[in-house]
C-alpha cells in the first residue's frame, strides 16, 4: 500500500558533492582540484535540473527471500537481508535531467578532459542528490543503506516497476531502454528501508 508520495525539485545549491565520491569518479586523490575541474563543475551546475519522485510503501517479507513491496513481489537475497525487520520503505527515482546528457555529449566532441571530468562530476552529483533525498525522508527514523537495482542479486528488471510506481515517466521523464538502462543517463532508482 502506498502511504505517502513526494515529488520535488532539488535546487543545485542543495547538491553537496561528497569529496570521496568525487575523487573516485575523477580518479584523483581526495580534495584534488584544478581550474578545469572548477570550470566544469560551474558549467555542469547550470545544466542540472534535478527532480525526484519518492513513494513510501509497506514492506512484507515472505518466505525464501521474497519481498512484497506492495507494488511488486521481489525475489532477492541481498535486498531481503537489507530490509530485514523493516515494515516500510521509500522507493525513489531521481534524475539530473536531459540537459546534463546533452552537455556531456557536446563535450565528448570538444574536449576529452572536460568530457571525462563532467561525466564523473555528474555521477557524483547524482549520488549527492540521493544523499539529499535520504536526508529529506529520514525525519527521526533510522534508515537502512540505500539499495538500487543491480546491487547484489537485485535484478535490473525491477527498475521498470520502480519507475512505474513513482510515476517516473510522467514526473521525471525517465524511460528505460531494452537493456533496462535509464535515460537520462544520470538517473538513479533506489529502495530505502525505514526502521520503526
Amino acid at each position, binding site marked *: *500500500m*502506498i*502511504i*505517502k*508520495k513526494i*515529488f520535488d*525539485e532539488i535546487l543545485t545549491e542543495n547538491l553537496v558533492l561528497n569529496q570521496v565520491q568525487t575523487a573516485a569518479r*575523477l*580518479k*584523483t*586523490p581526495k580534495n*584534488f582540484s*584544478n581550474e*578545469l*575541474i572548477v570550470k566544469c563543475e560551474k558549467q555542469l551546475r547550470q545544466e542540472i*535540473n534535478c527532480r525526484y519522485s519518492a513513494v513510501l510503501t509497506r514492506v512484507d517479507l515472505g518466505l525464501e527471500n521474497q519481498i512484497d513491496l*506492495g*507494488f511488486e513481489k521481489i525475489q532477492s537475497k541481498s535486498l531481503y537481508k537489507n530490509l530485514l525487520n523493516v515494515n516500510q520503505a521509500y522507493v525513489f527515482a531521481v534524475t539530473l*535531467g*536531459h*540537459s546534463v*546528457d*546533452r552537455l556531456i*555529449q*557536446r563535450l*565528448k*566532441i*570538444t*574536449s*576529452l*578532459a*572536460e*568530457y*571525462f*571530468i563532467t*561525466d564523473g562530476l555528474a555521477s557524483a552529483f547524482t549520488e549527492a542528490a540521493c544523499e539529499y533525498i535520504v536526508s529529506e525522508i529520514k525525519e527521526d527514523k533510522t534508515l537502512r543503506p540505500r539499495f538500487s537495482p543491480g546491487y547484489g542479486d537485485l535484478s535490473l528488471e525491477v527498475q521498470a516497476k520502480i519507475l512505474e510506481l513513482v510515476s517516473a*515517466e*510522467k514526473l*521525471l*521523464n525517465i*524511460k*528505460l*531502454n*531494452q*537493456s533496462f*538502462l535509464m*535515460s*537520462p543517463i544520470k538517473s538513479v532508482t533506489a529502495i530505502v528501508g525505514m526502521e520503526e
Partner: protein
Amino acid sequence: MKELKTLLTKQKLYFDGGFGTLLQSLGLPAGVAPEEWNLTQPHKIIDLHRAYLEAGSNFITTNTFGVNKLKYDNYEDYIISAIQCAKVAKEAKPDSQSFIAFDIGPSGRMLKPYGDLDFEEAVELFAANIRVAVKHGIDCILIETMNDAYETKAAVLAAKENAKLPIIVTNAYDQKGKLMTGANPKAMIALLEGLGVDAIGLNCSFGPDLMLPIVKEFAEYSSLPIVVSPNAGLPIIENGETKYDISADEFAAYMKQIANLGATILGGCCGTTPAYIRKMIEQTQDIKFMKPSPKNHTLVSSYTHAVEIDNQPILIGERINPTGKPKMREALKTNNLDYILQVGVKQAEKGVHILDVNVGLPEIDEVEMMQEVIKKLQIVIDLPLQIDSSNPKVLEKSMRIYNGKPLINSVNGNLESMEAIFPLVKKYGGTVIALTMDEAGIPETAIERVQIADKITKFAQKYDIDKKDIIVDPLCLTISSDTKSALTTLEAVKILRQQGYKTILGVSNISFGLPAREKINTSFYNSALENGLNCAIMNPFSIPMLDVYYAFRALHNLDTGCKDYIAFASQIDIPATTVSDEAISLFDAIIKGLTDSAISATKELLSIEQPLNIINNHVVPALNQVGQKFEENTIYLPQLLMSADAATASFEIIKNKIPLGSVEENKAVILATVKGDIHDIGKNIVKVLLESYGYKVHDLGKDVAPEKIVECIKSTDCRLVGLSALMTTTIPAMEETIKILREKFPDINIMVGGAVLNKNYAKMINADAYGPDAMAAVRFTKTYYSNTSV
C-alpha cells in the same frame, strides 16, 4: 470529418476529464492498467463516458492512452473495445456535437539518440494504433501528455499519414514551462503549426493555476485553437488514496481565467471528475468565443527553442558546407563526423542563431549523410538548422527526421522547384528560403526580383503556406562581374522589407573573385542591414563581420544597454593581450594541459621548425613525460586528459602542414565498444590519447557488432583492434567478437580494456593484451608498430 475541423475554429468545445484516477476510485486495482477494463468491465467505461457527456463534454476520449503494440500483442482488441465503449456512450446521447477522440499517449520509450527507439519505429508504433482506430470509426485524433517534441512529431506524422481526421495535440509542460526534454511553448507552437495540426495546447502535469503563464504564451504565438486540460492540482496521498488539492469550484474559477486568455477548447486531466467538468462548463459557457487569429511570427525551431525572425538581425553560420573548404570536403569523404560537429559547436559558441548544413558532394550519398549529420548535430547543439540542398529527396528525408521546424534552403520561382518543395513544407513544416530566380534566370532589376517573390508566395498559398513562412533571398551576385549588382540587391532588400517580406542573403557572395573579400563583405553586410535585411548567411569566425553585427544592434537600439556589444568587445580584447603576456613553450603547454597556449605555441614554432620535428621534439616528449608522471601517480587522469587535449590541438595544426602519409597515418588502430554495451568513455580516452600520439584511429563507436569490425579491418587493412566493455553482461559479446576476428584474420592483434576486465580474464577470452588504463593502450600500440613494418 470537416464538420469538427470547422467547429474547432467556430465555437468553444469541451473535453472530458481524468480517467485513470477515476477508474481507481471505481475499483480498478493498483497495478492494473485502465485499458484492461475495456475488455473486462466495458460497462464501467461506458458509464464514465456517459457521465462526462451528461456533464457537458463534447469529446469522448477513448480509453487507449497506454495502449500500443510494444505493450500488448493484442493491442487491436484494446483499441476496438475502447472505441466500442465510446460509441455506445455516444448513442445513448445522440447529440450532433459529440465526437470520439482517439487517445494517443506517449510510447513509454525514449527516442534515439537518448533512448533506443528509432524515429521511424515510433511513427510506425503510433500508425499501427491509428490504422485500427480509423477502421472502427473515430472523429479525431488526440495526441496528449507527450513530454518530448520528437515523439510528438512522430505521432503527428503517423496521424497525417494514416488518417484524414482533425489532429489535436496537447503536451505536458513542467513548472518551468518546458517539456522535460527541453522544448518551450514557442518551439512546440512552431513545430506543430508547421506540421499542420488543427488545435494545440497543454494538459496534465499540474493544476490550472500554474498553467496560466503558459496559456498566455500560447495566446500570443498560436494561430490555432488552444486546448487546455489541467490536472485537479497536485496529488496528495490520504490513507493510501490519491487526492488532488484543487476543488471543482476552484478549478472552474481558474478555467474561467484560462478561457478569458483565449483558450477555446477546455477539459481536465488527472484528478478531474464529471463534477469538475460540469462546473467548468457552467463558469465558462457564457464567455464569448474568441476566434483564433492568425499571428504573423516567422519562426524556425530546434527541439528546445524557436528563433523568431523579426527586428533583430539573425546570423546563420555557413561553415558546414564543403564548397571552397578542403577540410570539410575531406571530413565528408572520410565520414569524419566529429570534425563536422566541432565546426558546428564552434559556430554556436560564436553566437550564431541558426546553422546552415550543406553536405552536397558528388562522391558521397547526400541523402544519407544529411540525415546522419542532422541527427548528430541535434545531439550536441540546440540551435535550429537550415537544411541546405538542391536535391528535394535530401530535403524530404531530412525534414522528416529533423527535430523541430527547420529553415529550408531553398525554393525558387521555377515551377518544377515550387512543385517539388512546397508539398514537403506542407507535410513536414518549415520556413522556406525563396530565391528570386525562375526559368528566365536572375532578373537584373530589383522590381523584377520582388515580382518573383510575389509569384512564389502566391504559389505557396495553394499549399496553405503563409507569407510568414517564406524568407526571400534577392540574391547577391559578385560585384567583380557586375558593379551594379550590390545596389540592385540592396534595393530589392529594401522593397521586400517594405512589402512585409522577411529577407536573407548569403552576403559573402558579393565579393567573389576579389582580393581581401572580408573588407567588401563587411561593408555590404552593414548596408544590407541598414536596408532592412533580416538574416545573413555568414562566417561567424570573421571578427569584422561580428563587429558589424554587434555595432549595428547597438546603434539601432536593438541591444539594451549595449550589453551584448560590451560583452563581445571585451572578449575580442582578451586573446591579444593574454597570448603575448603568457606565451609558454609548446612542451610546457602540453605538460600543463593548456590548449590555447599549445595552439599559439605551435603556430609560432611552425615559422621556425619543420612540422615533423615539432612532433618529435616537442609533442611526443611532452606526452611521454606526462604519461610517465601518470603512471608514477604524480599526476592524475584529468591532467593526463588535459595534456592529451592540448597535444591533439597542436597536432591538428601541424597535420595540416605536412603531406599525408608522413606521420603515423598508416599506423592505425580500430577501436570499438562491444555489442550490447553503450559505455564509451574509456574507449574515447584511449582514442584521443592515441590520436595525440599521431596514430590514426578508426573509431567504430559503441554497441558495435563484430561484423562491423570485420568490415573495417577489410577496408582499412589495419590489424590492430582495441575492444572495450564496461558491463559484466557484455563480456560474452567481447569473447565472441574476439573469436570471430581470429577466425577471419589469423594475424589480428587485439587489446582489451574496461572496468570489468583484468589480466587473467583478458587471457581467458583470448586477447593479446590487457590495458588497465589508456597509457597501457598507447604502450601496446607503440610496441606493436615498432615490431611491425608498415
